[in-house]
Each structure stands twice: as C-alpha cells, then as structure tokens.
C-alpha cells in the first residue's frame, strides 16, 4: 500500500524560536539476495520487504531553548530506540503486536529519562509533548503524551484519536469544571503529562484505517487556530499530502500563528 506523507513546521508569527520537531520515517526489514542456488521462485513471497511508517510530532515546553532541546532530544531518542528495536513489526501476530506497542512505549520512556538526566541538571528539566503513529499495513498504533493531536479522516468524517492531557480536560472529566469554566480559565491548557516532566502517562491505542483515509498529526499551533471542520475540509480535498499540509499551515498562520505550528499529513493510497 502506498502512503503519501509530508510534514511541515513553522515558527509562527509571534514566537522567536521553533520548539516543535517532527519525523517521518520508514522502518524496513528486508533481505537483499546476493547469490543463491535456489530457484528464485522458491523464495518468492518469503524474502520480501516489510515496512512500517513512523510519524512523530513533538512540541517543546520550557522557554528559551529548553523546549526546543527537549522536543529534539525526545524525537531523536525515540527514533534511535525504535530503530534498534525494529524488526518485530514484520507480520505482526497477536503476541508481537503487544511487544511492538511496548517497544514504542519503552522508546518514549527512554526519551523521558534522557531529558531528565541530560537537560534537568540543577533544576526542573524542560519537557515536550510527543505524539507518535506507527502505520503497519492499515493498522495505526498510537502513543501519545501531552496535547499534540492525532486525527484521521475516514469517509469524509474527521475523528480525533488522542485526548489532550491538559488541566482543563482533567478537571472537566472529574466534573470539577464546566465547559464555561474551562473556556475562561488560563490554566486550562496547562499540560499534566509531558515527556521529561514531573508526570508522564503515555496513552496507547490503535485504529484500523482504510485505503483512502488520511492521518494527521499536529501540534497545538494548528488546533488553536484551525477548527476541526476546516481541517476536515482541507484533508478531504483530492490533493497531495504536501499540498494539504501547506494549506493547513497557511490557515494557521493567517489566523494569527501565535504558536509554533507542525503538521504531518499521511494519505493512504486507494
């Protein structure tokens, strides 16, 4: 199955630094045949390439260059770990599927510990959100910390795959706040779970996609300015991933661009 994926990041119109980072990567497991006495037909279907597509966005928290370092370190550490641990995605069976999720989660745990160890000397470490989607065939595995979001568009309908780990969401869930209170409160957007922070609670999930579906990962620089119906409209157009990503970015910038903005759009071939 073909996947047309494209990512963009922008500092926005207000901030001086871009503390967001993203990665689009392909994990491959393949055997390159040199010579063999076997007839090639005997190997057909057995020696083949399998690939998982990996999409990650991270939004650093911490001011100055701390947030930028944290999001960069998290993405880099996660990618290094997953690259070492990769291979278990080949023909994911039931047991391997859980192992794969555990490894993705372990990669985030390792990034969390590295940030605390290397960037937290002498005080509180900077931290970062992190949202990861690993696409194996048509199944998307998700690991999420913070308020960077994953969505998918299926049959014209946009569905949010992640829930923001913020003070506002937490207090709404607990019944301590109403929607009105949350809309007014300045602390509603405070993160209650971050990579490198004092609390980190990864949320894990998966979803089976269909050919033609579109996956979107983004930082809150997009969702602060572009509402879900607008996102759905853009993703629903018959355009390339790069064109859709650019259009979403332009909408966020035109609406103020008050934060760093990062988007990854992945369109699954029909």
């Amino acid at each position, binding site marked *: 199955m073909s996947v047309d994926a494209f990512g963009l990041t922008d500092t926005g119109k207000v901030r001086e630094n871009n503390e967001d980072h993203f990665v689009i990567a392909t994990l491959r497991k393949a055997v390159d045949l040199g010579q063999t006495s076997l007839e090639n037909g005997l190997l057909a279907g057995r020696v083949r390439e399998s690939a998982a597509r990996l999409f990650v966005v991270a939004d650093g928290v911490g001011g100055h260059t701390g947030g930028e370092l944290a999001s960069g370190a998290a993405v880099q550490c996660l990618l290094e770990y997953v690259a070492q641990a990769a291979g278990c995605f080949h023909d994911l*069976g*039931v*047991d391997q*599927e*859980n192992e794969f*999720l555990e490894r993705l989660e372990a990669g985030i745990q390792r990034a969390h510990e590295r940030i605390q160890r290397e960037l937290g000397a002498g005080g509180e470490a900077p931290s970062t959100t992190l949202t990861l989607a690993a696409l194996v065939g048509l*199944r*998307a595995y*998700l690991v999420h910390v913070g308020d960077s979001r994953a969505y998918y568009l299926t049959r014209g309908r946009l*569905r*949010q*795959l992640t*829930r923001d780990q913020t003070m506002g969401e937490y207090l*709404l*869930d*607990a*019944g301590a706040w109403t929607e009105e209170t949350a809309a007014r409160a300045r602390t509603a957007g405070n993160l209650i779970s971050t990579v490198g922070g004092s609390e980190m609670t990864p*949320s*894990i*999930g*998966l*979803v*089976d996609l269909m050919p033609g579906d579109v996956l979107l990962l983004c930082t809150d620089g997009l969702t602060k300015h572009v509402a879900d119906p607008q996102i759905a409209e853009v993703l629903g157009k018959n355009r390339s991933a790069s064109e859709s990503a650019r259009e979403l970015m332009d909408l966020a910038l035109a609406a103020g661009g008050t934060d760093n903005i990062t988007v990854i759009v992945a369109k699954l071939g029909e």
Partner: protein
Amino acid sequence: MIQKKICMVGVFGTGKTCLVQQFVHSRFSVKYHSTVGVKIDRKVVPVEDGEVTLLLWDLAGRDGHGDITVSYLRGAHGVLYVVDGTRRETFDQVFELRDIVEKAVGPLPSAVALNKSDLTEEWKLGKADDKALAARSWHQFTTSAKTGAGVEAAFAWIAREAVRQGSAPS
C-alpha cells in the same frame, strides 16, 4: 509474566471506558468521550498461581446497528460485555454482539457487566433479564464505574477464567 488480552465490547455509551478507568486508575470521568478505534490499558492482577497482566482493549462502542470491528478481537483471551442498565436496548443488543464475537474468534471466557448500578431510579433491568443471561450460561456482574461497585470482581473473574482457559488441556 502471563499476558491476557481482554476486549471490552458493547453499545456506545455503556461505560466501557469508564469501567477500565475505574479499574486501572481508580477514577471516574463525568464527561462522555466516544472511543475512537481502541484504547489500550494494562493492569497486573493476582490470580491463583501468581499474577497476570491484563491487556484491556477498550473497543469503540457499537454505534446504531453497525458492526463492531472484528479485526480488533483477534487473539483475545476473554471478553467483558458491557450493558447500560438504564438503557434497555443495550441489553437487548448484547446477545447479538456475542454472536458476532463468537463467529469471529470462537467461544471465549466472557461475562456481562450490567453497568451504572448507581442510577437506581433509572434502572431498567429485572429478574427476568438475570434469568435470560443465566439461561445462556453467562456470568453477570452488576457494576458501577462511578462508585467502583462490582468492578474489581468483574475483572478478577475474567482474569481468572482467561488464565484457566489458557492452561486447560486442549
């Protein structure tokens, strides 16, 4: 450690996610969030011969009369069906859901959680319904994700049965 995949199955809004949240994190959400795809949580629970890690697959609820996504059921070791005791139709549909699940993955250890027992004034189920479940040899628990009543017992039972079934000679 042994791991067992338990799927939460039911109509939308029956409280599947809330039961898992109460069981795993001892918390209750008053705000309704529709689950998209599957949310996965883990919890280690004691069983007769030690401990087992439950992988709790909280499946998106059946919406209207659409089918559940059976691909999520692959490899399950047990199913906890969830009924909202204040919505009669969620009880009526649970039998059909079990047929769909068993057609997809065969018979598995399963129980029914009759959830939202804290809403006593709105409760729509009676003794005849208990008998209907018993007649199908279906283990049932009356639960409240809000108060926690019956929640530990339901998950402990499904954990025990999943382990027992897994170690039974074939």
